[in-house]
């Protein structure tokens, strides 16, 4: 049976992980390559690197992070943040990333989804959507890291993204993000039922039960989180044990 995926997300700026990391004796708490390797050993199914570097001058550093990680860690790697062209996508895929995630750039130029999908395949094309509830059962798409309300309905955009060639949707609930009080299961279920590509739930995962809920009631195919793993509240292995006991199919550490 296809396993539900658990995906740690590493926010990287200038080549360093920025969210706090205090769960293991890292030689260097901010080293993304070392952290990626630890997550891999702990049973992560994939990894997402989100480049939050403000200045484009430092983009080279991210390339090195991806390249070094791909040499050590043999699970799928997604890179998001700052991918604005087919050239940007090619650069990270060539050094060892498997997928690129695009967000604001796709809203501004939807054809980018098709370009990446046709060149590298739908399996390499992740559409990241930041959504905020505008009224019950309705969510708007936000861009620029949540600063700009596009007024576009999340379902409309998810379906359009699928039609344009996206192979996966990374769906972040801005209402739940950072709060660690559970994912927005209504959001993930609504998008999941109205699309035919895998949905990665993001935003709000703070307790193992939150993951159980979003991967069952929320009908998500994968769940992404950062703080719960970084701060060592729960290891991935712990989390998978809880999921396994709850009857959610997961790949146990080998």
């Amino acid at each position, binding site marked *: *049976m*296809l*396993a*539900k*995926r658990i995906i740690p997300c590493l926010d990287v700026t200038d080549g360093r992980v920025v969210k706090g990391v205090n769960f293991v004796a890292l030689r260097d708490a901010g080293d993304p390559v070392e952290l990626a390797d630890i997550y*891999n050993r702990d049973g992560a*199914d994939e990894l997402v690197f989100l480049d939050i570097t403000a200045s484009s001058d430092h983009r080279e550093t991210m390339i090195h992070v991806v390249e070094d990680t*791909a*040499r050590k860690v*043999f*699970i*799928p790697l997604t890179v998001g943040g700052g991918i604005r062209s087919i050239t940007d996508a090619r650069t990270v*895929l*060539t*050094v*060892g990333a*498997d997928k690129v995630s695009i967000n604001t750039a796709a809203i501004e130029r939807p054809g980018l989804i098709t370009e990446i999908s*046709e*060149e*590298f*395949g*739908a*399996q*390499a094309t992740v559409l990241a959507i930041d959504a905020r509830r505008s009224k019950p059962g309705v969510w708007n798409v936000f861009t620029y890291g949540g600063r700009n309300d596009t007024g576009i309905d999340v379902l409309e955009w998810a379906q359009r993204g699928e039609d344009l060639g996206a*192979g*996966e949707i990374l769906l972040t609930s801005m209402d739940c993000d950072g709060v660690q009080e559970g994912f927005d299961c209504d959001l993930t279920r609504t998008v999941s039922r109205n699309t*035919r*590509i*895998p949905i990665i739930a993001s935003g709000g995962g703070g307790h193992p039960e939150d993951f159980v809920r979003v991967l069952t009631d929320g009908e998500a*195919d*994968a769940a992404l989180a950062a703080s719960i793993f970084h701060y060592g509240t729960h290891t991935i292995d712990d989390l998978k044990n809880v999921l396994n006991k709850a009857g959610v199919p997961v*790949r146990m550490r*080998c």
Partner: protein
Amino acid sequence: MIGIFDYGAGNLRSVENTLDSIGVRYEIVTDEEGLRRASKVILPGVGHFGQLIHSLDALEVRTAFCELIREGVPFLGICLGMQALFEKSEEAPDLDGLSIYPGVVRRFDSTARVPHMGWNELELEGRPRLLGDVGEHPYVYFAHSYYVPTEIAGKRTAALCNYGIDYVAAIEYQNVFGVQFHPEKSGVLGQKVMRNFLAAESLVVKS
């Protein structure tokens, strides 16, 4: 020499990294001459069936691939590289695959989420050499929308996977190996699969 064939579109880096990690030397080959020098050939493929076939034809290596496979050179096709061994694919119905084996590669029907993306279990058929020492039901990483149906792989089936239907996750016949999953992204198990391929003898009796 272990040759990894680069047709220009696939991301080879992950395959290279995996071989580096298990201490194997290889060469990236891009033409007929390179293929002829290789004692084992790996064809990694990502993207579109049509793009792969067009590239093989543009590089004028179709005949070389067919000949080396018939001559008994151990061959490993990864993902699209396995699908290319068959006659046709629904992804590009007008094009001919390498046609080593008959049959058509199909698209998952609309009842499943496509692409089939993530870690899924293998059901081994017998004791395939490629999948020695990986356990009974190993999880490996898949990312694909088209699949090899069981009826066209027949006795060459080395492992099945279930995604709504049972389909072929690996083939193995004499010197020809193919995997639908990505050993280069399947962690430690994937490294074992690569080692097994590199240790495999051709089993083709030269006349």
